């Protein structure tokens, strides 16, 4: 896995290859047993993509990242969180240098850290944020969108008129790490996401070198029909089984 091309989200190798005992061949097994293994090796300075939008936030992995201790992080997520909850908890460690998101509530840990000069903020329209992440995963090196082109957010930035519309040049977001939530996972890392808990999960998994998944359910390889895989295992490097509490496992 050496020498990734610049601008490509080079995959990390799968968590493990387990010998089958059948002539030396091995099977891909991305499951890890503990939260420590799941978040191992996240380096200081990493760009961390954190999925979720009301649902689909991998809270256990965020707790693991806090425990793991990586600092000087760039955090990419939809919104800056509230006064409590996983994003607030992570920001409160003051190990996030910069937050890239679509909005920050005035009453939130993020807003207070920003006001105190302890957090950089990059506010990106939500659709542009999603598209920049998707571009990172898809090897698109830049794109033009009319979104925000004639607003304050475009000040000092490159625009171009295409087909009569003012457009803004946007660049991809590449993650070193993505923290992903899933409903089901198999040992190749194929995932389903439940209902609207899908949100940023498939595109963030694709845009990061190391996609770490928290899954509610473990299923055998083949249990997810090929036509209904929501995030293909080729985008996933590690999977941790975090059974859902009785009440929500509906």
């Amino acid at each position, binding site marked *: 896995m050496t020498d990734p091309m610049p601008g490509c989200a080079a995959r990390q190798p799968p968590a493990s290859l387990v010998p089958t005992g059948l002539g030396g061949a091995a099977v891909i097994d991305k499951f890890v047993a503990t939260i420590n293994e799941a978040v191992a090796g996240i380096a200081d300075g990493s760009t961390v993509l954190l999925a979720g939008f009301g649902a689909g936030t991998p809270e256990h992995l965020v707790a693991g990242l806090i425990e793991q201790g990586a600092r000087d992080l760039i955090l990419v997520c939809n919104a800056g969180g509230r006064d409590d909850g996983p994003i607030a908890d992570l920001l409160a460690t003051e190990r996030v240098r910069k937050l890239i998101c679509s909005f920050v509530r005035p009453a939130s840990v993020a807003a207070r850290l*920003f006001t105190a000069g302890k957090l950089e*903020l990059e506010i990106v329209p939500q*659709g542009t944020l999603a598209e920049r*992440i998707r571009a990172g995963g898809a090897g698109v090196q830049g794109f033009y969108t009319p979104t925000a082109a004639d*607003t304050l957010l475009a000040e000092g930035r490159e625009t171009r008129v295409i087909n009569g519309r003012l457009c803004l040049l946007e660049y991809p977001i590449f993650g070193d790490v993505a923290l992903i939530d899933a409903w089901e996972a198999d040992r190749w890392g194929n995932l389903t996401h439940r*209902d*609207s*808990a*899908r949100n940023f999960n498939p595109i963030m998994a694709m845009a990061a070198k190391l996609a770490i998944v928290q899954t509610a359910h473990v299923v055998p390889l083949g249990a997810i029909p090929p036509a209904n895989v929501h995030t293909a295992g080729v985008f996933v490097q590690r999977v941790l089984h975090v059974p859902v509490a009785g009440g929500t496992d509906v």
Partner: protein
Amino acid sequence: MYKPLDRNGIAARIARDIPEGWFVNLGIGIPTAVSDFVPEDREVIFHAENGVIGIGPAPPPGSENPYLVNAGVQHVTIRTGGAYVHHADSFAIARGGHLDLCVLGAFEVSENGDIANWARAADEPVKQVGGAMDLAVGAQRLWVAMEHNTKGGGGSRIRRVCSYPLTAKGVVRRVYTDLAVLDVTPGGFVVRDMVEGMTFEALQERTEAVLVRG
């Protein structure tokens, strides 16, 4: 004397104007309430930015599905015939012109169709952009739902030029307020409807932009 609509009144008024078969995104605030006034046998399909096509009514208390929320992170249901997509596909819907209509709340709308709905000052330290800029430039038509005047005062939200930072330029087609329905036209704001008892002159008095009789 006239009686302004309350927020639900504005939402109900909008719901009446949405034809069958339209695919509609509702912003946070007054717009979210619009779907409550579209009976379930009317096939208007609602979109939420977080990847839900076919948002249905709120579930009865106690039967919320924690995995199913709308763009305002409220528990919702999904209609028969709905679909889930991921966030990039969801905004491809918005940006790609697939919404017949988006209804947004706003602080101000100007006579050339500019909308300001995300910040009250250019130097506001913490910015709440969300998905409004994407929706505003992408939907086939943008309607705004808001109060006609600023809270507790005579300030007009219907303006010649917006005073707040813009969300997008020249995109608003129609504004529903507690007092009137106004179309944005090349000739300015045209009054399409007013609440009972309202006169054109009284409406103009409460409006900074110059109004045109509909």
